[in-house]
């Protein structure tokens, strides 16, 4: 298993390299550049920016160099652990990314934990009580959850809270260490918003998986031995039904990192999502590259962990 993990880890390198090349290339295909964003601004009126002023700033920022030189320069620094200096903020990228990464990970973890904690019991109960009223309600709930776009749900929650309760989560941000209660107030609603879709999807997968497992012969044998239904379901069925759920949850976590972009904006959470949007608006490709690199690493690591956990849950799985 150790060799397998190492081999998979080594494969990260070409994957990450490809990701950064792709992002870098795409970024320069898009019209507009950091100099234009700085002088002409992200939004609003922009004065009378002249072509000469733009050219002057491009030279100062080194944007007039050939693309491969810019990429090589960025890559060389990144390999030495220097992710560069933001073109917009003029501060080291890592100093910004560090705090935001933790915020986003906290939010995503909270969301996935909420989703899994609710989805698994819901899916299991739905399967056990197949074709009953509970099952129908659960399936309708899941369909709605999958169909509702996350950003729309977020806007709806904000609107409803402001209009009917005259209350919204406090503005600003407090870390869980500084003020746990305030942190919870600020993150619980975005986490629930993000969790809703995942909950619905995971519940459906759990239900399908459970239904399949519950038709297996070994469960009939367990029941024939006289084991109680709770033990049959919890000990024998659920463990085997969890494999697909685990796969889905790993995938969902990676997807969450994409979902947070809009939800963070709606709920004013200063995570990587808002930084990503800003870096695109301001054409700050140094920050963008760093975010993409970090997210890619997280996704690759999660995929690896999910693969490795198969072996723990199912002894039949062997790593060659």
């Amino acid at each position, binding site marked *: 298993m150790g060799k397998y993990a190492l081999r998979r880890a080594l494969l990260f390198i070409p994957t990450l390299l490809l990701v950064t090349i792709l992002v870098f290339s795409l970024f320069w295909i898009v019209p507009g550049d950091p100099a234009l964003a700085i002088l*002409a601004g992200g*939004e609003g*009126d*922009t004065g*009378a920016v*002249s*072509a000469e002023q733009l050219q002057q700033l491009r030279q100062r920022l080194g944007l007039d160099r050939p693309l491969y030189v810019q990429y090589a320069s960025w890559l060389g620094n990144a390999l030495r652990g220097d992710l560069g200096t933001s073109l917009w903020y*003029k501060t080291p990228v890592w100093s*910004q990314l560090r705090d935001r990464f933790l915020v986003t990970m906290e939010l995503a973890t909270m969301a996935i934990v909420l989703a899994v904690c609710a989805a698994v019991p819901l899916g299991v109960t739905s399967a056990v009580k197949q074709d009953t009223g509970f099952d129908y309600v659960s399936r309708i709930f899941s369909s709605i959850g999958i169909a509702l776009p996350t950003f729309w749900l977020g806007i709806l929650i904000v609107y409803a809270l402001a209009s009917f309760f005259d209350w919204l989560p406090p503005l600003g941000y407090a870390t869980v260490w500084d003020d746990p209660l305030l942190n919870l107030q600020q993150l619980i609603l975005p986490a629930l918003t993000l969790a809703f879709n995942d909950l619905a999807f995971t519940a459906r997968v759990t239900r399908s998986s459970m239904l399949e497992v519950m038709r297996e012969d070994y469960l009939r044998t367990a029941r024939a031995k006289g084991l109680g239904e709770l033990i049959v379901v919890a000990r024998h069925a659920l463990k085997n039904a969890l494999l697909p759920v685990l796969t889905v949850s790993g995938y969902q976590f990676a997807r969450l990192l994409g979902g947070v972009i809009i939800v963070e904006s709606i709920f004013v959470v200063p995570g990587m999502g808002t930084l990503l949007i800003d870096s695109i608006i301001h054409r700050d490709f140094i920050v963008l590259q760093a975010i993409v690199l970090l997210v890619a690493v997280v996704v690759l690591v999660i995929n690896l962990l999910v693969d490795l956990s198969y072996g723990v849950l199912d002894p039949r799985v062997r790593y060659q």
Partner: protein
Amino acid sequence: MTRGVLPVAVLLLMTIAVIPRPSAAQTSTPEGQTFTFPWPPDWVARGKYQKMILKGVTGFNPGQWDVHACGTLPDCLMPSSPQFNGLVYHDPVNPDRIVCDLCESWTVSRDGKTYTFRLRQAQWHDGQPVTAEDIKFSLDRIVEPGAIRVRTGVMRAFYEYGAAQVIDDRTVRVPLRFASPLFLENLASEYMKMYPKHVAKGLSPEDAQKPGKLIGSGPWKLKEFKPNISIEYVRNTNYFKKGLPYFDGMSFTIVRDYNRRLAAMQVGQAHTTEGPTIGTYGSEDPMRIQRETKGRVRAVYIPEAVQTYMVLHMNKPPFQDARVRRAVFLAVDRHELTKIVRCAEGFGCFGSIGTFLPNKGGKIIEPPEELAQVKGWRKPKDADLAEAKALMAAAGYPNGFKAMLNLGNVPLVVKSGEVLAEQLRRGLGIDLTIEAVDRATQVDRIMRRTHHASLDSSGVIILDPADYLNQHFLVTSGQKNPDGWQHPKLTELIQAQAKEPDPGKRLRMFKDAVEILRGGESHVVPLSWGFSGGMMDYRLQNFHVPGSEQIVKHFEHVWWDPDAPLPKP
């Protein structure tokens, strides 16, 4: 439309009511005329300091902090301004007037070519005194040759680098290239801030743009800028305008989502929006929040603050042909467009029909009664459309043509584009394909002239129409005149008005300039004027609506009155 404007006009009148006049003394000496501004003016004592933080929301995440170099209002000027003073500025309680800020008086020589400023006793945030040497340094920095000066570069026309003379520690003499009524107006622009020489001199252009690197003498000191979270200021307890500001601190939370900002105001999480006004809120939304909160949130609007216009690109057919440009200019129904885009059912209108120049600083250049007779604005449109069709036929496009329209993905701009496309399809058979993109892409496309036409918007900076003429018709190859369109007579008029001291003659020059532009052959097709809007808690007192969203951005004069009566609906 008049009916719709009424509620907003009433609101504005209520807002600007009971404005005290600052006590400026004017004396005549052999050297010239001296204008003195004793401190404090009478309104200062009416405010009361409160031990509280003024809380605001802003949709912008600033990246530039050197107002001499930067070019944007929300990303640079708004967060920077509270830290600095100008030499002169717009009186915050009577914003049409220019008064002393760091100076206590100025003397204009008899020929109008020299201004002598006498400074107040003021201190920079590090305790060092503000000296005439700092002022000379700042004026030179504003016009520094070769440096990027997006907004302040206009001063190069009036002041030559190195020309200012330090008379003594508190007196500086500023000779001008020529006598101009525009010098003071430009000097009062919020971008013309004064910096301490001992701090700014050692900063590279990149370092100067970092938060907190440049310090000022202003009412607020930057405490901390947390990117994407907040901008926090503390009160300058050593501020030379004793008694100001009226709060312990000021904190703007960065909320990128527009609806979330509205919601924050609605539930009382903030006392004010950024600015407090900006074009982003130039719709019925602030008014709606005012109604929903039963007056707790006050809607504030600056009329005729942002112009939406079409730029016709002349680097390719069909707009290379002046006849086609004129046809489009004539065919646009500005009344219909303004009604659809700027008015909201049950709320009224938040804009007016597009003219070439803003009516600012008491200069009414294109009055509505005159426009009713002018081609392109007159009603009904039949005669204009007939002439436009004839021009299209003469240019070889009797059945119209297909063209690409580049515009920003802002709802109001997209709506303008849709109405415009429908009008041109209906009237001239022009089939416009709309491409809505983000701001950086939009500006890039304007400057590279990739499309046939672009929609853009432009805010009023100084309270004088000359600024508009400069930006759109004198500065060439830039974003506002990408094709470098020029008209010899127009250029002559723009240059002449800058030197004309007689207001009557200047007005005549502006009217002549407009007459040339009404020929419809330039790259600019004005569409509509929009409001700049914002929201404030009703207890926030002493805010007076300025004529431009680019002035009075320092929050030094507003105070909190917990006992203020809730305004009647």
